[in-house]
């Protein structure tokens, strides 16, 4: 029985909670209820021949007043950095967070999510931004929690990195 702790990180209101809700409970709501502290969910997945339980930590988004507590990040095996395509600020926060974790925890599995793909018309994130992300050599996946696009891929993209025999594939 393999268990892994993963975290969803990113600026506030980028859709972290929505992505988890969509993934775990197949639900979506337009209402915005900001997460306070941490909320934990779990999801069983199968990667190849390995059964894996993802313990998903939904951590309150960063804003000007609160930064993510390092304590919550301890022991994580992988993380998803969520960017709201309609907000440039969320991109900056994502990069900063990623850098911080790299220094704090070293190399861990990670995936970038470009969320709110259904609002692409309003996106301020352009090709250059995406290219810059791709340079970090982690998967970058466009998602929409609202339309259930790329959500499964997003989590599986991370899960695949967590299972030993698949980690190099």
């Amino acid at each position, binding site marked *: *029985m*393999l*268990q*892994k*702790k993963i975290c969803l990180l990113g600026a506030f209101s980028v859709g972290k909670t929505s992505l988890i809700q969509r993934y775990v409970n197949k639900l979506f709501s337009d209402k915005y209820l900001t997460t306070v*502290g*941490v909320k*934990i*969910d*779990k999801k069983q997945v199968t990667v190849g021949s390995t059964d*894996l*339980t993802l*313990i998903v*930590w939904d951590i309150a988004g960063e804003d000007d007043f609160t930064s993510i*507590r*390092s*304590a*919550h990040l*301890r*022991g*994580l*095996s992988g993380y998803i950095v969520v960017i709201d395509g309609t907000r440039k600020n969320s991109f900056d926060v994502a990069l900063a967070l990623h850098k911080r974790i790299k220094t704090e925890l070293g190399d861990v599995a990670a995936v970038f999510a470009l969320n709110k793909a259904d609002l692409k018309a309003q996106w301020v994130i352009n090709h250059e931004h995406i290219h810059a992300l791709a340079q970090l050599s982690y998967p970058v996946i466009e998602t929409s929690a609202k339309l259930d696009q790329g959500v499964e891929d997003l989590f599986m993209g991370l899960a695949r990195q*967590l299972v030993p025999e698949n980690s190099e594939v």
Partner: protein
Amino acid sequence: MLVTEGLDSHAAIQQTTKQQDSPAAQGLDALEQLRVLLLGADYQTLSELRQQLLDRERYSLHVAEVISEALTLRAQQDNSLSDALFPTIEAAVSRSVEHNPSRLANALYPVMGPAIRRSIQEVLQQALETFNHLLEQSLSVRSLFWRFDAWRTGRSYSEVVLLKTLVYQVEQVFLIHRESGLLLQHALSPQAISKDADMISGMLTAIQDFIRDSFQVTSDNSLKTLQLDELTVFFNQGPYAMMAAVVRGNPPAEFNNLLTEVNEQIHRQHFYFLKTFQGDTSIFKRCLPLLERCLKTQLRDTKKFPWLAVLALVTFTGAGLWWSYQYYQHKLIAEEALGALRAEPGLVVVGFEKTDEGYQYEILKDPQAREPTAVIQALQKGNLPLNLHTKPYLSLEPTFVLARAKQILQPSPQVNLSLEGKTLVVQGQATPSWQQKLVQVGSLITGVEFLEQSKLQIIDPDAEKLTEHLGRLVKQIETSRFNFSLGSSSLENVQDHAQQVIALIFDLLKTARLMGKMPQVSISGSADETGSETINERLAKERALAMRDYLLQQGVPAAVIAVPKPDTGRRDERSIHYQVDLF
């Protein structure tokens, strides 16, 4: 890349060492000599020792000498020996069982019996206590208050009961990987309900982290307890794993020690796995028994002797015994009654069974037989339900045939009835009417086919009386006289006489008829001696005729009064007299 580099440099070092060694090997003898010179006799001992260490056999011999002492010593110091040995012993035992199960079975045999007995005893004791607990709960006035409390607070009744009767109960124990907050193992008490333990485990860790971060405490100082209404979460931090126990109520102080003890033991046993934990929790299954040790429950007044349960049990058993005794007794009585009914003449028991309503007897009863209820009256005591269902029937037993004959014929005391085979023998004296009845009915009596009445004497008491009465009447009539005046045949003052005679004649007529006879009253007249013969003769005749006419005139039937006969009796009187003849 990095790894390869490391390997390369290591190989390089080894190479240089080799290069240095080869010239030294050439001057080995010289060096040896130098050593001998420097160390003298000690060198001999040292190389001896070295040989001993290198030679497997000799080293083993050496260790063998002290191994028991060493083990004993270490065992006195701490528990690590048992922790270290236990996987090996476990494996050895299971190997032994695989290899030859009977050997271990034989060895365990002397302890198994008592152990099994004890565990059965414990289970029974527990069951009794649980039962007692339940009884107390459902019986006491307290329980009413608790129900009210449950209703008031919106909690389930069992929750309230638990709260009120518990000193404490450890509902769940989590073993959590400290760093990742992943759940390593989880033990749940049977009474408790748990949401997803994996998620709770994460949240407990997050809470810990949050507190630590928020109040800038050192990582050694962490949250020890978390209080939520009646629930308390006790934390015990180990270097790699945290234990969290969810407790309802107030556990004693030793409970914390228990957590510490268990956590330490887990760390001792699984140190390596904890340190290198990468998400594979399967190895920690072995910790479950240890965690379960922490699932303690203490009820209030648990030491109390289970009076209620024992009382209930005794009552039930007593009632059961009493019932079976009663049942047995009733059965005996019912069977005795059956015997009595069967033995009773004129009763035939055709059915006997036990139903929910009691014992049922189907009885055929001859009308002459004793009432079945009377037969079993002596046995029918208390409220034992012996139900008799009687149907009439005619018995052919001689006594019943005879009794039946007596009942139907109602013979007088002078008649004696007896039965000879199918013949009813009638003896004695009887009236004709009774005899008539006997002839009519006798052969219709069930069981009687023939009548024998040769020794029956018929006596008619009425006829005797009538004859007597008739005789009296005849005498009265024949002695009646009516006197005439001298030489006269006219009836003077005849009324009184006539009245008397007429009454007698009517009575006579009636009585004679009853006897089937016809009376005739002849009237004769007579005269005194004073007149001449002829005159007297005529006068006597006239007198008789006068009376006859008068009587006829008064309504006496003509057939009764005969033509007057000449007076045969020589009487010297002026009268008439009567003579009665019966035909």
